[in-house]
Structure formats: C-alpha cells, structure tokens
C-alpha cells in the first residue's frame, strides 16, 4: 500500500533544491493550498525563480516565466489569434499564463493594461481570446516579484490589484551559513529540482482538506479585530528612527479590506493544515497576519520621513490585539 502523500513531502522537496528561504517556501505552499497568488518583494538573486521552478517540478506541473517589460502587451501574456494561411482561418495561440506555476518577474515594469490583464486572469481563472474563453489550469499559482531597490521606470501596482494577491512575502538575504551551503550546492553545477513528489490531484485533495480546517468563533473574532486595527489603530504607537514615539494611525492612509479578513482565515487554515492539524490556532493567525496585511495597508509619506518600516507598524498593530 502506498502511503498518502503529504504537503510536508513537497516542502522537503523544495528544501532539497532551495537553501533557506523558508518564508518563500511556506508562502508558495500556502498559496497552493489556499488557491491564491503570492507577491514576492526582494532584491534579485534570491532564488525566487528557482523556487517557482522547483515547485512546478515537484508537482509534475508546468512552469512558465514572464519577464515584465515596458513594451509588453496583454496578448504576450494571455495569447492571441493568428491567421493561418494554409487553413484560411484564425487559430488561437495560448500565452504563457497557461501553466500551473507562473512567475511574473518584475511585475511593476509593465504598464497598467498588462498588469490588469494578468491580475484579471488571476482573479477569474480564465482568459478570453477573441470570442472564446479558456479556463486556466488547476492548480494555478502566480508568483509575482517586485524589486524594492530599483524603482526607476516602474509602474506602481494599483491598490485594488495588490489586494488580489493572497499574500505578500518579503524575501531577505540568506544567513552566512546558508550562503556557505549555497556555495557548496551550486558551485559546480545547477541543482536540478526534485521531480514529482506529489501530483496535481494531491494538491486538489489537500486544498479540500485545508478548506475544512475548523476556525473557532473566538478565533474569527480575533481575525476581525486584527483587520479592524489596521483601519483604526487608536493608541498603537511605534518608535521612529530617532526614537520618537509615533501614533500608527498617523502613518496610515487606509486600512486593510474585508478581502484581508478572508485571506487571514484562508492562510490560517492552510498553516494549520501544513502543521498537521484540522483546527486553527491563534498562532496560525498571528504568523500569517503580516503576509496577509502588508500589501493591503496604505501607508503615507510619513512612514519614509520618520524612518519607520511598514512591517514595524504592522507588528505593533498585531501586538496591540490580544489573542484569544
């Protein structure tokens, strides 16, 4: 009898290929389990592409990468209709978005109409080319990256479009020990991603199980309070660059939407499922809260002038809400 495959197998397979970056790996797994998409922000060279490729390989799924540039067109992503002279008819050529794992590299380098074409496909999970609609494969995960260091020639993503990402993960540099392991592993040749430790059917089954994870009433109220504090931070205080105490409310233009509430619940369920539980805990909610909230809160210019990081404000907001 074959033992049932578990998400942990997938995590282990990804860890075989990628050194460190536990946050990215967990983000990918959560997005897969919760049927959502991930926005990754971090400097180049931090194994974002490799993580995507490894995930697709470990699932025996299809991987596509789209490099966003200012001259990209929506048809370069979703596909187009071309005239076949031999057949004397139009034929549809599907774009690179038709894959299980799609890496939208430097999404903010393309103009708004291209971004919205991608984000609409992410939301609707289908694209329309000419008169015909085409369903995207299932599972379908988009991992979009943004580079925080180089903002010249970029088009900021509109708030409504940012909101469509289930989570935003900040990708950091590896530790010294991890970097030594990277040297050992990749010095001679590229490590090939682990092949097929789970199937796409497994992912669909996991997703159903993750969806059934129980969230107790008190935990639902905690989730709602966490989102509410982003809209009315009250007396939440953060310490600025020069030690000044600042009211979090003065740094925020607008708080998270109800979509954040749903995202928090989905992600908490996913995290509980990854931990082998069929009920979620306050720890699950607190752990995923920064990922679900950081791209949904509108910070104003004072954040930069006071030298406060967005994550520090979010951390203070989360700390201000007592867990049940």
């Amino acid at each position, binding site marked *: 009898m074959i033992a049932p495959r578990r998400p942990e197998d997938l995590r282990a397979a990804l860890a075989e290929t990628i050194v460190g970056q536990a946050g990215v790996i967990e983000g990918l797994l959560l997005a897969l389990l919760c049927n959502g998409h991930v926005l990754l922000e971090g400097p180049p060279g931090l194994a974002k592409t490799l993580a995507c490729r490894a995930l697709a390989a470990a699932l025996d799924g299809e991987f596509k990468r789209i490099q966003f540039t200012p001259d990209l067109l929506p048809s370069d992503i979703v596909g187009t209709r071309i005239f076949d002279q031999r057949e004397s008819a139009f034929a549809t050529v599907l774009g690179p978005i038709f894959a299980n794992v799609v890496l939208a590299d430097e999404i903010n380098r393309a103009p708004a109409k291209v971004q919205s074409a991608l984000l609409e496909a992410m939301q609707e999970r289908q694209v329309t080319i000419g008169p015909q609609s085409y369903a995207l494969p299932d599972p379908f995960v988009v991992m979009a990256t943004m580079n925080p260091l180089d903002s010249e020639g970029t088009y900021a993503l509109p708030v409504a479009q940012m909101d469509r990402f289930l989570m935003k993960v900040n990708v950091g540099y590896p530790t010294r020990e991890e970097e030594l392991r990277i040297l050992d592993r990749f010095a001679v040749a590229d490590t090939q991603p682990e092949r097929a430790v789970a199937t796409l059917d497994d992912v669909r089954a996991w997703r159903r199980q993750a969806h059934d994870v*129980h969230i*107790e009433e*008190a*935990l639902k109220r905690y989730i709602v309070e966490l989102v509410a504090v982003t809209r009315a931070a009250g*007396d*939440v*205080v*953060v310490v600025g660059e020069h030690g000044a*105490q600042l009211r979090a409310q003065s740094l925020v233009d607008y708080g998270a939407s109800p979509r954040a509430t749903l995202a928090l619940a989905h992600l908490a369920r996913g995290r509980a499922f990854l931990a082998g539980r*069929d*009920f*979620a*805990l*306050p*720890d699950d909610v*607190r752990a995923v809260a920064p990922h679900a909230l950081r791209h949904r809160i509108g910070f104003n210019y004072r954040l930069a002038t006071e030298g406060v990081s967005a994550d520090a404000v979010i951390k*203070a907001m989360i*700390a*201000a*809400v*007592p*867990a*049940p």
Partner: protein
Amino acid sequence: MARNAAAALILAAAVLHGAAPVRAQALQRLTVESFALSADASGPLVDVPFHLVVTLRVRETVGQIANINLPILAQLELLGDERQTAGGPAGTQYRETITVVAHQPGTLAIAPATLQAVDGRDGKPKQWYTNALNLHVRANGTQELRAGERTIASAAMLALYAMLWLFGIGCAGAIGVLLFRRRRQTVSPEPAPVPPAPEEPQPSSASELEDALALLRAERTRDAAVRVRSAVWRTVGAADGETLADVLARTQGAPADLRDLLTALERSAFTYDADLQGAIDASVAALERRLGDMT
C-alpha cells in the same frame, strides 16, 4: 522626564549593585522549571500604579535566589520592589513584585529579566531569560479630552468655582457658628480603625491545577476548557493576549508534561465540536500527569 531618568538611574544602580557579587561568588546550582515576567495589567493607565512580576520556579530547595537581573525600566517610575521566596519539598518558588507607574501613554517594550546559575541538569553555567513584555499604556479619560472639550470643561469649572465662592462667602458666618458650637460639645471618640483584612494566601500551582482538573472533570465544555487554559497559563506567568507559541517559548526549560498540558488545552479551546470530548480527555490526562509529576 526627570522622574523617569531618576528611576532609570536607581534601577541601573540596583542592577549594578546586584551584579557585583555575581563575579565574586559561585553561581547557584539550579534546575529552572519556569522563569517568567508578567504584568498585572496589559493596558495600564497613565499615572495609575501597576505591578511587574518576575516568577521563578526551581526544583531545588534554596533559601534565596541570587543573580536575577531586572530589565532597565527607563520609561517607568519605580515605586517599590518586594521579593518572596517560598521553599518546599517540591522546590522553590521565587516571586519579585515591582510596583511601577507610567506617565506617558504609548507602547512600552520591557526587556526580559535574566538569571545566571549553574544548570542543575548538566552542571554548566548558563543565563536564562524571561519573556519580554509589550504593554500598552492608555491615557486616562481626562487626558483624552480634546482641546475644545477641555475649554468647555475649564469654563464650566470656572463658573462652578465662582458659584462656590459666592456660596462660601454667604455661608461663612453660619459655618463659623457651627464650628464654635461643635467645640463646646463633647468630642465623641473616633471610631477604631478597621484592621486590614488578612491577605488571602496565594494558591499554589498544584492547588490551581487540582481545581482546574476538578472543573474539567465536572464540566466537559469548551467554556470550561478555556477557563482551565487561562488558569494554567497564569501558573506559568503568561499574560492575557499571548499565544501558545509565546507560552511554549517561555517554558522552554520546563518538563515535557507541562508543555504537553499546554498543547492539549490549546486543542480543547480551539478544536471543532466533534473532537472536543477527545480533546478534553487528553487535557484531563495531561493535567493528571502534570499533577503526578509535581507531587
């Protein structure tokens, strides 16, 4: 500001004073079971005193605990410090209660207290840390009044003072007469001061766990499980609003059965209804194991 600075200096001096003998004397050999820092109010009010409590439980029976270093409470005014050490066959419980007051609203980050000792488990000198605390100091109601409201309030107060002044002048003669008459009357003895009620003894961890076990056996509901979870968390110095990860981090050196108990109670509090009875069974069993280990 000056009071805060003074408090910082006093506490720093106290810390240095306490730290000096550390180098001179040998470290105590202790098996630390729990070491925690808590506050009796997660949202203290400005200018209202509250308590920070350092609790330490060790397996050995010792007369006193040395080498505990408190955090520097620069943003708080120090009002008092009380230490209690209770030893018994089951070990020693140390409790230090620091009375402080905040004069500014906002979030206070209090660093962990530390303990230096030779670990009774492996004989190596180590430093233990409590949890850190994040307290949210809230402004008093009067301080939250806005400028307009303050103006109206001060105008109303002025009018009230004026009325009182006029009333006072009008009644001055009558009061004088009353006072004169009182002096001539026999002075009745003042009532004897009521002796302060004896402090209720603090229940020990074991008795709290026994109560919790009795409650959970009698009332197998989620509500009871949640109450028992709060009671057990209090025994390890956890404050309201923390999560299991915080409490487990605090009890890292604690016996495995305590950690099992915390995990089982978390399941009882948050699992789905069909699993609740099984979760309560597991919690009862974990409580029994913990009590058996303690006695």
